[in-house]
């Protein structure tokens, strides 16, 4: 047992193994939250949004025609209980994978009940968006996924950041200030190719896939909000 796959590499393998696209239906009451989440999720090109609703009734009305493979649904909706709606959706389409979003972390007892009711995973609004996206991919083929949902997430990125070399940190800071690669190269007196290879290394080490993740991390870090 020598090495482990990084979470993102594991995700990559999972995505490659199933050729089917992830047909996503999202039921969330608030437009702002729904949009922010979808902006993140739809960056993954295997995901196809086949429908969205604000209410449980609308979800059940549209689900049959939309034929999603995954339903992302909030537990607390305005018109009906999200879990009840999910149970009805599963009665109609048992192969649907349901990911329930709870307001707060659920207890083990409740998690057990949800899993027994056919819910594939529960993510709480306290968790980072990366956790939700990871979960979405794990459950896409009908698998149950239970993360260490009650534990504080390890400050993995923080530790990884401290392990970056001085030059890597410098590049990370310049990238986070949205400076183009060409300008970074000019400022450091190195080639663009070198900056790109720094960039790749920083992303791998911090476990990020995209610039916005790095920008968010660096700004939080800078203002001490990362603790």
């Amino acid at each position, binding site marked *: 047992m020598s090495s482990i796959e990084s979470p993102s590499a594991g995700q990559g393998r999972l995505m490659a193994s199933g050729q089917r696209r992830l047909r996503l239906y999202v039921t969330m009451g608030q437009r702002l939250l729904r949009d922010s989440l979808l902006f993140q999720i739809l960056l993954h090109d295997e995901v196809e949004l086949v429908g969205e609703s604000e209410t449980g009734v609308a979800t059940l009305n549209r689900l049959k025609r939309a034929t999603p493979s995954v339903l992302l649904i909030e537990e607390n909706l305005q018109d*009906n*209980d999200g879990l*009840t709606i999910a149970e009805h959706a599963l009665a109609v389409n048992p192969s649907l994978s349901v990911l329930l979003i709870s307001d707060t972390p659920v207890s083990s007892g409740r998690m057990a009940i949800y899993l027994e009711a056919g819910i594939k995973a529960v993510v709480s609004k306290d968790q980072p968006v990366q956790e939700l996206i990871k979960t979405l991919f794990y459950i896409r*083929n009908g698998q149950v*996924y239970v993360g260490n949902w009650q534990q504080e997430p390890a400050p993995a990125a923080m530790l990884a950041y401290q392990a970056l070399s001085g030059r890597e940190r410098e590049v990370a800071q310049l990238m986070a200030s949205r400076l183009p690669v060409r300008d970074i190269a000019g400022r450091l007196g190195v080639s663009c190719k070198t900056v790109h290879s720094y960039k790749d290394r920083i992303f791998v080490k911090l476990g990020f896939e995209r610039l916005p993740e790095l920008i968010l991390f660096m700004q939080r870090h800078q203002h001490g909000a990362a603790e």
Partner: protein
Amino acid sequence: MATSGAAEILLRYDDDQDRQHFETLFASDFVIHAFATDQGALDYLPSAATIPTAIVLLPNRADDYLESSLLARARDHHPRILKILIGDAIALNLLVKLLDHQLVDRCFEQPVNPDVIRSHVLTAALTREGQTFSPDTSEAHEGPKPAILIVDDEPTATRYLSRQLERMQDEFRVLSAISAEEAQLVLQKDSDVAVVMTDQRMPGMHGKELLDELRQSHPTIVRILTSAWGEVDVAMDAVNEGRIFRYQKKPWNAAELLSLFRKALVQHRTLVSARDRSRSIAEQQFAELRQQRRARLLEHLNERVDGFTGEPITADFLDALATVRTLPAQPPHLRASRETALEHDLVRDFAGMAGRQLSTLQPGHVHGIQNRQAFDQALANALENPAGTSETQTPLMALCQALATLMKASGLERSALELTRTESGLMVASASPLHMYSHLLAPITRLSRPLLEQQSALLMLFVSTRLLAGDIDVTGGDQCLRLSLHLPARAD
């Protein structure tokens, strides 16, 4: 049940470095008891304070574990322990044999994804998946003969095999399909399919994907994967994710398959009887719970509600609810009722909400409503202010407020209500059924605000209609109800 405290893992390792690495990955998630020998682990098991959730094996040579006395003991005496093998390289033959002997439940090659291992163990700790029932060896019951469905894109081989199998026995029928898509059509038509054996490599949907779907849609159908290609990663995924019964290598041998299918049919009967038993137990036990809930609701509401009008409104309301059919009771509903505060909170919260709404009602001596216009105005107000802001309400306001809440829960607009003028008053009816996915007397997994509001609205509808000297008629359907109110009113 390992719902309190961390789940425990019994780790059987050969190499100390492997143990250390495993502990680094999982020490924060699980309590790990590590043993370097089978004997050490076997000695520990009977004396353990809690039976571990999983046995994880980290062998130097995975093949040695075919003879593992630890795995055999776990299989025979602790069927609920999840058995996970993690090897540097797993040969297909080994996997096939481990499955045949039911020695492992999950199998992974290094390097493993810790998320996945953690999820498997946590899931096993939380659910009762490991619950096994003694195999049902009784002879096939009367009724249609069960069918084995073989899915393969080479029809000649399948046809030949089917004929051979049909000649050799009289216990089952043999059906075939040339693709996963055709298999799904066969399954729609023939409800007696007990076993599906599918080839992995086919145009269109692959065998593993078909089995993944079947696991969800037809959980009692026994799943077998077959392939001429020794793709061990596919086989491992099928074991770990698709929970296949066996992996059958090609070329097929009719005698071997006959014995395999017989075992699969026993497994199918076991699954069916376990499902039927758990269903009938759930229904029976929920019927008792429903009685208790009804009695407690009556007890808590009777005086308060019926005192308003001097009529047995609570009982009428609960009788009306009982006509609304919801999904049948399942084990998680029972669990929610028994293991959480659901039953207590349901009665308390509903009685509280109903009490608050009743206290805003101005009893007054109202007989009938003024006219249709007054009703229209009150309804429009209620639809515009769904929260019901006023501190006191006339019965008409309360009635319209209740209608607005019920319509919101159904996603319906004002146009869904039909108003008709009758000789003595107004007739208000729902043009299309109102949705009711759950109610106070239905199996519930979770208490929510929308549920309480909807239920309370229906109760208020009963109360306010009576206060207006009207009649209410509720007819339940599948997850819905139809309403009709008759309210005395003066001429327009």
